[in-house]
């Protein structure tokens, strides 16, 4: 079957924050309406809505988000459903939207990622996040999501002779970029000294290794590339690749825990679809839930050799001026990580870069950008490659 090319014609996002005064539906609504306005489309033109979300059932007592949000934003009647793939839910919803347009089922699709995480106490949120892991064989032992990443980080430091402070450039870079992103949660810069002295959460992972969870929503509007010109003359972004792969949910079920095989498979499927390689990518929004995940992602996606992801950061190559800028708007670390929304935030940010609308954070002449969203500690990995469309 001949697939249609798919483009992004509108983007929208809320600031990531502790939105005490706003509910999940209000956050989703703000992002969706912003994206529809950006795309210059009327509600009547929308065929379907896909909502990426992980924890609404547990944290907000609300499932059935497709119909709920469609109705709330004036799209009552359309096809709408929720997609869940842990922290990869956002990109999973985008992939579904992409498939529907590429396959000719729908023409105009809205994709939204939303998460409302700050209504509950810490232990409850921690329990929720642990649901991305194996309930019977990981979570029952009291190992948290942070703890699983800490197990990987300790082993990484042991095998490759890396010190904790060597991970500092990931956090310093993320906060530097978030400082000039009005939608970011943490906009103050962080020094190496602050990084090294931060409060321990799950040894060796401290507070500044960890992304900050928050409330937020992001949305994009998709249509066939051939129709994009009807809505937008400039700033159309084409989806050159959409690829997904999976791994064992539990880290202990993986033959090589320090290699994110699903991240590798997902990235290389995407490179193949787009007919490009890592060296062609101008910026990479990776899934920096923890500093260790940044290192492992850079390695799996082919930007650094095994065990050298940290060295790439230390050499300054992940900064806006470097060979492969990452987290250009703050990443999960400093823009904030509303888990089910993150994958859509990443794509919104890549789209803004390719449209030349990233403000002080603009990567000069960015043509090709990649976003990689990870569910759990690497079990679900979804990669999108976007290109500025002339």
């Amino acid at each position: 079957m001949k697939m249609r090319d798919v483009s992004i014609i509108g983007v929208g996002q809320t600031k990531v924050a502790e939105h005490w005064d706003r509910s999940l539906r209000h956050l989703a609504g703000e992002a969706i309406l912003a994206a529809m306005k950006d795309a210059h489309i009327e509600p009547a033109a929308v065929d379907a809505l896909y909502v990426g979300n992980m924890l609404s059932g547990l944290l907000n007592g609300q499932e059935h988000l497709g119909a709920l949000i469609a109705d709330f934003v004036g799209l009552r009647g359309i096809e709408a459903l929720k997609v869940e793939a842990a922290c990869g839910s956002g990109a999973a919803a985008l992939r579904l939207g992409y498939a529907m347009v590429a396959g000719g089922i729908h023409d105009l699709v809205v994709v939204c990622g939303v998460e409302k995480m700050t209504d509950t106490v810490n232990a409850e949120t921690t329990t929720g996040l642990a649901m991305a892991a194996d309930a019977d064989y990981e979570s029952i032992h009291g190992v948290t999501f942070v703890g699983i990443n800490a197990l990987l980080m300790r082993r990484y430091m042991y095998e490759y002779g890396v010190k904790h402070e060597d991970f500092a450039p990931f956090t310093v870079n993320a906060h530097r970029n978030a400082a000039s992103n009005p939608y970011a949660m943490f906009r103050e810069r962080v020094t190496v000294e602050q990084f090294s002295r931060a409060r321990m959460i799950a040894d060796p992972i401290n507070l500044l290794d960890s992304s900050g969870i928050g409330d937020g929503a992001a949305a994009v509007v998709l249509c066939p590339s051939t129709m994009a010109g009807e809505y937008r003359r400039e700033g159309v972004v084409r989806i050159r690749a959409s690829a997904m792969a999976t791994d064992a949910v539990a880290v202990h079920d993986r033959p090589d825990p320090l290699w994110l095989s699903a991240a590798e498979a997902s990235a290389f499927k995407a490179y193949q679809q787009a007919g490009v390689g890592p060296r062609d990518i101008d910026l990479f929004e990776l899934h920096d839930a923890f500093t260790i995940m940044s290192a492992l992602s850079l390695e799996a996606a082919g930007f650094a050799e095994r065990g050298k992801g940290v060295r790439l950061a230390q050499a300054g190559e992940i900064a806006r001026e470097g060979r492969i800028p990452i987290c250009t708007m703050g990443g999960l670390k400093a823009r904030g990580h509303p888990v089910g929304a993150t994958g859509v935030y990443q794509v919104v940010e890549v789209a803004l870069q390719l449209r030349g609308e990233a403000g002080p954070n603009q990567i000069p002449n960015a043509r090709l950008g990649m976003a990689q969203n990870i569910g759990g500690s690497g079990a679900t990995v979804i990669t999108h490659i976007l290109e500025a469309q002339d």
Partner: protein
Amino acid sequence: MDIPRHWRLQRQRYALVGEVCKKCGARLFPPRDVCPQCSQPAYEPFQFSGKGKVYSYSTLYQAPAGYEQFVPYTVALVQLDEGPLVTAQLTDVDQDEIQIGMPVEMVTRKLREEGEDGLIIYGYKFRKQPAEAA
């Protein structure tokens, strides 16, 4: 409320019973019915010795609901002598003593208490092997 869920796992929790693949000989824990190495059915029970080495570890200072009382506690990936990695807590050991490669053995301990309705869940943890056994 989820008593059956834990009851079903008693042979794993109390005795580290996994499976062995008759086709390729891989020893599997947790049991999974299909061998991940050769994709053949693997239903033959196999009891692990409970001995292994620390592959990695982390001391947790933030706990999920139901585990707050144990903070700080140390979780680990233990490489069993028969091959598989298993996630579990370390117990009866000084923080300073723990290192990657340390020989450990399985013991049965309380994993968690389910609030006021009183369900207490027991299962495997690992402690340092006595020097003469290591």
